[in-house]
């Protein structure tokens, strides 16, 4: 009897708390609550920044005792990849194709031609479905919702909310993301869909062209959602289907979202 009363009290507590929480969700999703919501989220940003700095210090100390052989192997792999990327840059120059965005390892802002604000990543979204980033720059530093976010490697995503001194970025891992892109060598166009696995590009086929593994996909600028020329990913697989209206290519992300520590927010491009 006592337990049944306690059970019904707990159920009542759950129902009341759930209704109040649902009310908070409804109230905070209306458009005029975007500013206060972003400001509230910014309240934890200093702690996130401190936690990220602490994590970096611990990782730095632990790396002293890391496996030297593993690090040497990784260094060799990165050196080979760097050489491959440099060769690719040379090919694009020779072909006269758009290559400014592929000078990212040298001087991204100068070659890309947009004004950018550099921000540190101080947190990551807590769930596996929306995959967001929190950065330590906000409205006070010129960051606004909708602005495009990149790294030296390529596209990261778009600012979703901007508080006074922090902002939340919706990344390309978010399944809602859609990016108009084109393949550099074959000049095929299509739309890239976000997701936690490989990016998926629906390619508009042409009889005279086919995508190749290793080919880079860059933003096309169509629809004016993203500036043209930002690397999105590299083709790892292409399933050509002449009977369908589009073929599908899988892309490896240009940017490793799990490892990115610093991003650039493009502040002089207004998406449509």
């Amino acid at each position: 009897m006592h337990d049944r009363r306690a059970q019904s009290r707990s159920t009542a507590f759950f129902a009341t708390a759930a209704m109040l929480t649902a009310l908070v969700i409804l109230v905070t999703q209306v458009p005029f609550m975007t500013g206060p919501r972003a400001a509230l989220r910014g309240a934890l940003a200093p702690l996130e920044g401190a936690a990220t700095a602490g994590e970096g210090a611990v990782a730095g100390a632990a790396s002293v005792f890391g496996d030297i052989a593993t690090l040497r192997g990784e260094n060799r792999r990165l050196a080979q990849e760097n050489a491959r990327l440099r060769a690719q840059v040379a090919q694009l120059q020779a072909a006269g194709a758009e290559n400014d965005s592929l000078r990212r390892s040298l001087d991204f802002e100068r070659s890309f031609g947009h004004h950018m604000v550099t921000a540190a990543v101080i947190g990551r979204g807590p769930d596996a479905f929306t995959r967001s980033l929190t950065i330590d720059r906000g409205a006070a530093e010129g960051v606004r919702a909708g602005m495009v976010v990149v790294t030296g490697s390529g596209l990261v995503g778009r600012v979703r909310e901007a508080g006074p001194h922090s902002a939340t970025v919706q990344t390309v891992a978010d399944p809602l993301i859609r990016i108009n892109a084109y393949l550099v060598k074959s000049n095929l166009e299509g739309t890239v869909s976000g997701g936690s696995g490989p990016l998926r590009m629906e390619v508009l086929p042409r009889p005279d062209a086919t995508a190749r593994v290793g080919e880079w996909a860059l933003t096309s600028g169509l629809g004016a959602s993203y500036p043209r020329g930002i690397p999105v990913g590299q083709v790892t697989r292409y399933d050509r289907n002449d009977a369908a209206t589009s073929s599908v290519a899988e892309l490896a992300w240009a940017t490793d979202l799990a490892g990115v520590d610093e991003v650039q927010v493009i502040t002089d491009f207004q998406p449509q």
Partner: protein
Amino acid sequence: MTFKAALLLLAAALLQVTLVGRLDPAVPAPNLVLALCAGRALTGGARSGMVWALVGGALLDLAGAVGPLGVHALAMLGATYAVGVVAAAFESTRPGVAALAGALAGAVYGGTILLGADTLGLARVSPAAALPLLAGGAVMAGALAALATALMRGRTPLEVAPTWR
């Protein structure tokens, strides 16, 4: 809820959005806050667990989630209530029961986040992509809940039968 408990939840939330966020997205990520709330519900009663869930979920909402506030709090609340249901049904906090309760909590949490994201237009995940994430999350939550319960049980009388306190 004590100040120490609030600090513990804050530390777990900060670790969740910094260290845990760096893990390979192909691997189910541990949810530290969910594990703590499930452990509290199993050792301290369902209502106590739900209070922890509201605080922990609110911290996750503030610490970098997108969209309206409260989605993670609601998901955590439902997950912890589910823990209370399992615990009262078995009247035990043995590791097997804790793991089962944690797994159910993980599934409820992930399902609520997915449903909320879809309803609020935050994300649309296909079933083929969602199911492995949900299943992996549930397994991870079950393991962590069992661990959290074992650690927390040392601070409460061993033979306390879980009730709807």
